[in-house]
């Protein structure tokens, strides 16, 4: 009886050892597979790098273009800047900006060029105009109004709480308590 028990225990440890080994092998194949997959994923990255190099023929110009385009809005995907958008129009506009920069146009001239075609909407920084007054000063006006309201309410509250006149008896009790406190502290 005892022998069979140890035998089965041996068998069990053997089986579990086998399982661990198999898992290890599995792990190895998994690691290998994931490594090769990630390497495969890198291939298009290298292919792309070749293309990008061609676009950024002049790194100084490219930097200026990106700096300019970061403050301009792409009209197709409206919450993306012209610099980060992948829309075809954004690519065309970046090309346009690049060409105008290489022609020696100033940033201001290029911004004027784009605003003339697409309106102030292309600017992330809206200009101060008669119809943008609310946009620029609205929050401050709201803040002032809220502060005024708060002051008014506080004053009204102070007035609405009547000052309670103490009776002689209560006054006496209060002085006694206060004096007691002073003595205790001393």
């Amino acid at each position, binding site marked *: 009886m005892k022998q069979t028990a140890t035998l089965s225990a041996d068998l069990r440890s053997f089986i579990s050892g086998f399982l661990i080994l198999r898992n290890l092998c599995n792990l190895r194949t998994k690691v290998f597979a994931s490594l090769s997959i990630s390497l495969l994923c890198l291939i298009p990255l290298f292919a792309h790098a070749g293309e990008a190099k061609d676009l950024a023929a002049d790194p100084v110009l490219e930097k200026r273009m990106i700096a300019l385009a970061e403050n301009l809005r792409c*009209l*197709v995907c*409206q919450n993306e800047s012209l610099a980060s958008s992948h829309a*075809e*129009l954004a690519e*065309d*506009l970046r090309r*346009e900006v690049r060409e105008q920069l290489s022609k020696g146009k100033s940033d201001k001239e290029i911004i004027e060029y784009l*605003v*003339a*075609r*697409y*309106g*102030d*909407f292309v600017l992330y920084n809206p200009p101060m105009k008669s119809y943008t007054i609310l946009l620029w000063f609205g929050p401050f006006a709201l803040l002032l109004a809220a502060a005024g309201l708060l002051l008014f309410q506080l004053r009204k509250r102070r007035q609405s709480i009547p000052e309670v006149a103490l009776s002689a008896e209560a006054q006496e009790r209060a002085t006694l308590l206060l004096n007691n406190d002073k003595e205790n502290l001393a």
Partner: protein
Amino acid sequence: MMRFILPFIVFVALSGFLYVGLHLDPHEVPSPLIGKAAPPFNLPQLHDPAKNFSPEQMKGKVWLLNVWASWCVSCKEEHPILVQLAGKHIVPIYGLDYKDKSADAQATLNGGGDPYTLTVSDADGRIGIDYGVYGVPETYVIDKQGIIQYKQIGPITHQNLSEKILPLVAELEKRS
């Protein structure tokens, strides 16, 4: 009483703003070109690239410039409406084939009918930029002096045609 009325007024005002906001299309960016001269161009014609077309040639006429492309899905939506409009001979429609391959554009026009008096090819989209095009289709109503009077962003529908474009064309025709 004020305690209830004031929040109620604020609530109603806020609801009003939100309700109006529901019907605003943030994709419709007002064009700064309205009231300004249509930007000049001189582009090859789609069907005959040896010949060019320029808006200069349209002085004295009210016309529509429709920006479209064979790859544009909503252009297919408005195409039959344009064909119908062209059949009525109310206003000439000129096409600006935006960033398209000539063969694809011609195939589209051969298949679905050609509403355009003529179409020009803006293969690299530069004239599109001059006109502030940011999504096809877009349609410009240009008056006799060559001034852009209206820009329809998105497809022409029976509704915006009868409510906006055609009344405007009729009014512009009356002006000298």
